């Protein structure tokens, strides 16, 4: 019986549609630009220093590994630059130069190259680096501590630390529109919610990231936070607050969607995003860490091969011992 859903293929020769990894990388960097520009406009030269050094160091580490492993130079594909950029976006503007050098080394060498390079990394490289820095230099990655010398006229207490310490009453100190417009302390490129959403939508429309992961991640952060909020409105912040603070938006559009560490099938993508969202709010609300996005996505990166085992049934009938 004919099935209308069958994929119809035609004979070779095929025509390349012109897409390339480098185009995707530069598109991702373009999508991140609004958030990055706001970060630079707020923190000035120190933020630019972290961003520029991080992108260049990530590319240099990639080149060093290419030479060391006698492989063709792969920095032309722009993937290392994207890793460097995302890593810098997650960092505070006050990060010392050596932290950027060490972080990009961890991201590119330990997070990606030792697994075989692009497409082979089981974990998001930028997140591996941030997780290691968070565990190794806690105070450097604590935004309250790192940004003590900055004052922009809005509440400069890191929102997620505030709700962890003071409960939901701290939410009223922040303005929702302000959070969306970047009026909150945080990583260089993580605070401008609107910019990240626009960048994310651009990537979805260009087909570079899958909407299933972003949407399920955001929806599950919202629903889980809502359930916590309903159970104890005095203790747990409302879901919109969770969506607009910390690494939620950059996680949904730029981190969880990384190609090689996220699933490829429809249902696994939804599960991946949903579990990452649930874990994020669980870590934030009842875990030890202030923000859960980093460890939630890394946990789901680990579960990714298992999730991708849920796949459509192959056509035809399998014959054992054929």
């Amino acid at each position, binding site marked *: 019986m004919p099935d209308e859903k069958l994929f119809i293929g035609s004979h070779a020769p095929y025509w390349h549609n012109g897409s390339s990894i480098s185009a995707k990388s530069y598109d991702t960097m373009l999508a991140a630009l609004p958030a990055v520009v706001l970060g630079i406009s707020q923190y000035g030269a120190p933020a630019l220093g972290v961003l520029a050094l991080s992108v*260049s160091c990530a*590319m240099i580490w990639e080149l060093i590994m290419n030479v060391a492993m006698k492989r063709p130079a792969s920095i032309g594909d722009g993937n290392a630059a994207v890793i460097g950029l995302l890593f810098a976006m997650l960092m505070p503007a006050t990060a010392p130069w050596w932290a950027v050098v060490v972080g990009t080394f961890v991201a590119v060498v330990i997070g990606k190259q030792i697994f075989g390079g692009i497409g082979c990394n089981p974990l998001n490289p930028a997140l591996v680096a941030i997780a290691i820095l968070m565990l190794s230099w806690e105070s450097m990655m604590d935004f309250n501590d790192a940004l003590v010398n900055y004052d922009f006229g809005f509440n400069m207490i890191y929102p997620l630390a505030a709700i962890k310490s003071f409960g939901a009453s701290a939410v009223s100190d922040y303005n929702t529109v302000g959070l969306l417009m970047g009026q909150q302390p945080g990583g260089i490129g993580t605070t401008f919610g609107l910019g990240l959403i626009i960048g994310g939508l651009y990537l979805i429309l260009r087909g570079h990231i899958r909407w299933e992961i972003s949407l399920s991640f955001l929806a599950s952060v919202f629903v889980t936070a809502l359930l916590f909020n309903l159970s104890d409105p005095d203790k747990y912040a409302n879901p919109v607050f969770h969506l607009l603070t910390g690494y939620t938006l950059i996680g949904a559009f730029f981190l969880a969607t990384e190609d090689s560490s996220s699933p490829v099938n429809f249902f696994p993508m939804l599960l991946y995003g949903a579990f990452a969202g649930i874990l994020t709010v669980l870590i934030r609300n009842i875990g030890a860490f202030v923000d859960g996005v980093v460890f939630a996505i890394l946990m789901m990166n680990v579960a990714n091969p298992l999730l991708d085992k849920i796949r459509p049934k192959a056509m035809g009938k399998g014959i054992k011992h054929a």
Partner: protein
Amino acid sequence: MDLTLDQRRETNMELKTEKTVAYCLAAILLVVGVVCYAAFPQKKPEDPIRIMLKSAGGTVLFDHKEHASEDGYGLDCTECHHMWENDGTKPEACTECHTAEAEDDMPKLSDAFHKQCISCHEDDGTAPVECSVCHAF
């Protein structure tokens, strides 16, 4: 079907261009990064904005600006600072004399802070006096 010679040349040219762009980007950004770090080192403002006081009982994020500015609580420097730098223009930082451990007659830093903050908060009547409100992080 194999690529024609022209197509191969075109692909090689594209890869070469990509690499050249990447090398240039890496070099330019390295220079920008080094210049930013070297020319704009992190500077502490003359008057502290916030001070992170690490403590086993919970870190205190002390908003110095809020306490000192006219728009905030408008406290005079001398209400907390009782020592002045040699030239007499600027109050001495608490940590100049009060250290983590008590020395001779000098109260240790945590005792000095407790005495200073709690007594003022109690006198004020509206400022928080519960431990967890200041030792919050």
